[in-house]
């Protein structure tokens, strides 16, 4: 670790320590917002770990999230909660590995459509199973986990995402993914196992999304497929990550904070139009700031740097 990296590390650790004190502020509205921001930070950042360098747009977040939530809902009566959390992670990993093996050979738009269809497919299967075998549409998740407990868990998970993302960026794997994102033919010809590299990161993505689902399940109290497998979640994650900038580890966070706050307002004022507004937001981001806010800032900095060096 260089001095500079050590400096960043201390700074980030301090920021997490401060954020961990949020529940003691005693304002439940702030805590609710904190849960939302922490949740989307984990989802969008882990999404960007895979999609940022490879440019494969995955809409499978809701599939993994729902799997995680259902693991907790199904096992809460029989297994201790921490075991369920771990199990949700494993389930997410297995699901991501299976999906990855089947789809990562697909390119571009085929991959997007498949991942979108996947969440829908799992949702239909779960619905069908519940209708035919369990007799009820949803499941109750009754625990004594508090809102602040959920917040701390999400915060810990966010710390884990950043730690893993930082390590990946310094590793051969991270470099391999950047090359793959540039040109898969070159990647193969310099000796990179593209499928394995993509799969590894997709699995990381699946694990985190499933664990977020597992952590959020007690908050819903009652879950049913249409809640936890909602495609809206997948789209929101993509939009937030792109808004911030998916090519930097801290990029998605820059998108998550304003978007979560804005979304709270929109969902309260215009509950019927959320999907429409989501679509408009998506179009605006893709057309106006394809590299996100962070990309904009970086190119602005580069431009002023050039100006001063010429002067």
């Amino acid at each position, binding site marked *: 670790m260089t001095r500079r990296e050590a400096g960043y590390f201390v700074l980030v650790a301090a920021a997490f320590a401060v954020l961990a004190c949020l529940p003691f502020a005693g304002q439940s509205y702030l805590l609710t917002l904190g849960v939302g921001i922490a949740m989307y930070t984990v989802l969008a950042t882990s999404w960007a770990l895979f999609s940022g360098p490879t440019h494969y747009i995955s809409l499978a977040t809701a599939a993994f999230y729902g799997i995680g939530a259902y693991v907790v809902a199904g096992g809460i009566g029989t297994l201790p909660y921490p075991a369920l959390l771990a199990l949700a992670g494993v389930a997410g990993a297995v699901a991501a590995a299976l999906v990855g093996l089947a789809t990562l050979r697909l390119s571009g738009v085929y991959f997007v459509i498949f991942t979108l269809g996947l969440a829908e497919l799992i949702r239909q299967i779960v619905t069908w199973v519940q209708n035919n075998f369990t007799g009820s549409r949803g499941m109750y998740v009754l625990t004594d986990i508090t809102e602040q407990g959920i917040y701390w868990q999400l915060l810990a998970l966010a710390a884990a995402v950043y730690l893993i993302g930082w390590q990946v960026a310094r590793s*051969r794997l991270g*470099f*391999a993914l*950047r*090359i793959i*994102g*540039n*040109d898969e*033919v*070159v*990647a*193969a*010809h*310099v*000796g*990179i*196992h*593209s499928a394995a590299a993509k799969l590894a990161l997709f699995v990381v993505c699946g694990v985190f999304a499933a664990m977020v689902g597992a952590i959020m399940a007690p908050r819903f109290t009652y879950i049913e497929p249409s809640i936890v497998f909602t495609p809206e979640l997948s789209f929101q994650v993509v939009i937030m990550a792109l808004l911030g900038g998916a090519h930097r580890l801290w990029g998605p966070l820059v998108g998550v904070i304003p978007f979560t706050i804005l979304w709270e307002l929109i969902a309260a004022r215009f509950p019927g139009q959320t999907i429409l507004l989501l679509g408009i937001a998506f179009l605006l981001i893709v057309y106006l700031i394809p590299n996100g806010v962070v990309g904009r800032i970086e190119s602005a900095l580069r431009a002023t740097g050039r100006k001063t060096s010429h002067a």
Partner: protein
Amino acid sequence: MPEKTVLEVQGVSKRFGGLVAVDGLSFAVRENEVMGLIGPNGSGKTTVINLVSGALRPSEGEIYLDEDMISERPARAIARAGVARTFQLVRVLPSLTVLENVLAGAVFGHKRLWGRAARKFALRQLERVGMAHAAHAPTASLTYIDEKRIELARALASDPRILLLDEWLAGLNPTELQVGIALIRSLREEGRTIVLVEHVMDAIRSLCDRCVVMNGGAKIAEGTPQETLADREVIRAYLGEQNA
């Protein structure tokens, strides 16, 4: 004593639907040799490079690197075994810096270096191709010739045993061509085996130990540049019946 064969193509054919791009081709490349692969446009030269590097799989026949059959293996495995290539249509990695482009070869190829050793080795290759001054420049600022140099440096950074150059000298002006020829010669002198697809006759005459001439996917001549370029069949393939 005959020199050791390092790369052997045995009865290789490649069909794309009804089109036969390569038709029962056989040749051998000896250690530390520069082998020219020449022929008119559309004769299947680039397809041969793609077959050797693993970008394509032969429909028939086998390709051997030493004793290992590589024709069933994926491109990444062939690269790791020590075969590096450049592309006819240059492929640089646009969002990476010049040095990172070259690092890609050093980190994942035959040599598999990491960290400081990889950077040092990559910088040395940039020096060889005369691009060390631009190491930290973005690739977007490069000219076509510089892109070609970067690509060669990337191939060299994997420390390949066999280097496949697909028209690497094409598009260079006369001065650059002399520099390019000297560079390839120096690679041969350090013990590399080189297969080059080329149209520049000066380069073929001055660099190649032997040539394989292709036409319509098949080999029509093989030998030293002097022999093959004087061959009636070869002249006919290039210039047509009345000039032969």
